[in-house]
């Protein structure tokens, strides 16, 4: 197998592009695809300050690496989610990456700063952990981006992520979500600009990029996510992709070209207000994150042992009551 560009031995085949690449040209391919996405979707400019949400996994670290290699000013943001050893390991990978490259990593810890972790949130709400996790991360990403005066928050969502979300939302016709599934969401109503520069990159390409660049990422899957529907959708799409390379790209980019505008349900400015608890933009008096925080911490207070007075035996009461 030869590299399509230089005819030297290739290390990976990318069937969607009908191409094989050596290490150097795989890296070049990844940079070109990210540059193309940034340009095609007008994500940000060369002078913008970016905040990259990093989990310690392959996609977020690759996104941070690529943006820095391309010359962008990009700091990192790590959110500790209170998932025990998994969170410890993910923080280690994020910190190590930042230290090796002398990059700035901002850290927010959900447990110490808000009094709960994803496990407790899932228990208190009776919903899947990924639901509370996503809500908490979006809230913290938005708040940190605004507070740090960054021009955009960058996430490491890749083509496989977007195709799988689209697949799930289409199967259930979640039209509100379909209208928001874009590679760029502009800053509006107090929310920061959100961008996904890896949308032209497959998940396998991102993992390969990390291997050839020596990026030590957390390989293990989040224990809270194992077996969730999102992973099931990815597996289903990969079976289609194996039979017909290019299916995921055609599905996702065809949606962006032909359908996403039909589902646009962006909320008008006058419908937004400020959360009375944290000040974040919200359609309700209290934002969804603060409602979650209140629910989880209230449940924890109720569930935890409370100090009680030792009751006096009835025959020893002094006032005659029992």
């Amino acid at each position, binding site marked *: 197998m030869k590299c399509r560009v230089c005819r030297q031995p290739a*290390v*990976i085949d990318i069937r969607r592009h009908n191409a094989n690449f050596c290490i150097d040209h795989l890296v070049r391919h990844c940079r070109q695809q990210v540059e193309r996405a940034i340009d095609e979707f007008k994500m940000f400019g060369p002078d913008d300050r970016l905040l990259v949400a990093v989990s310690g996994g392959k*996609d977020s670290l690759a996104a941070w690496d690529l943006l820095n290699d391309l010359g962008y000013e990009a700091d990192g943001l790590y959110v500790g989610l209170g998932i025990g050893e998994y969170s410890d390991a993910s923080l280690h990978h994020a910190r190590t990456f930042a230290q090796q490259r002398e990059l700035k990593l901002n850290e927010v810890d959900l447990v110490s700063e808000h009094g709960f972790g994803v496990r407790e949130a899932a228990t208190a709400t009776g919903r899947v952990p990924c639901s509370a996790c996503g809500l908490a*991360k979006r809230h913290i990403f938005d708040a940190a981006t605004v507070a740090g005066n960054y021009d955009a928050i960058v996430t490491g969502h890749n083509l496989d992520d977007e195709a799988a*979300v689209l697949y799930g939302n289409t199967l259930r016709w979640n039209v509100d979500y379909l209208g928001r599934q874009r590679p760029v969401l502009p800053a509006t109503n107090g929310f920061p600009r959100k961008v996904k520069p890896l949308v032209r990159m497959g998940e396998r390409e*991102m993992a390969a990029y990390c*291997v050839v660049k020596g990026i030590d990422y957390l*390989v293990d899957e989040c224990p809270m996510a194992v077996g969730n529907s999102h992973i099931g959708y990815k597996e289903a799409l990969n079976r289609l992709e194996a039979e017909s390379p290019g299916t995921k790209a055609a599905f996702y980019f065809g949606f962006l070209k032909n359908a996403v505008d039909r589902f646009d349900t962006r909320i008008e400015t006058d419908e937004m207000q400020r959360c009375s608890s944290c000040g974040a933009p919200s359609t309700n008096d209290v934002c969804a994150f603060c409602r979650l925080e209140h629910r989880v911490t209230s449940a924890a207070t109720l569930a935890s042992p409370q100090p009680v007075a030792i009751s006096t035996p009835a025959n020893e009461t002094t006032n005659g009551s029992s």
Partner: protein
Amino acid sequence: MEIRLRDPERNLTVKGPMSITKLLRSLDLNRESVLVIRDSTLVPGDAVLADDDVVEIRPVISGGSR
């Protein structure tokens, strides 16, 4: 050859030589969902693994909250 698999972590011994394609098929793994790594280097799909090779088959699918 020694095969290291992840999620869950486990090791297998498979008789070589064997092509990557045949190995993945025998393990019922989709080539779109994994990378094969030998000595910290990617192994291309048309490679043949020797009986004394030690390789990792690394899943690339991830996904929790979006």
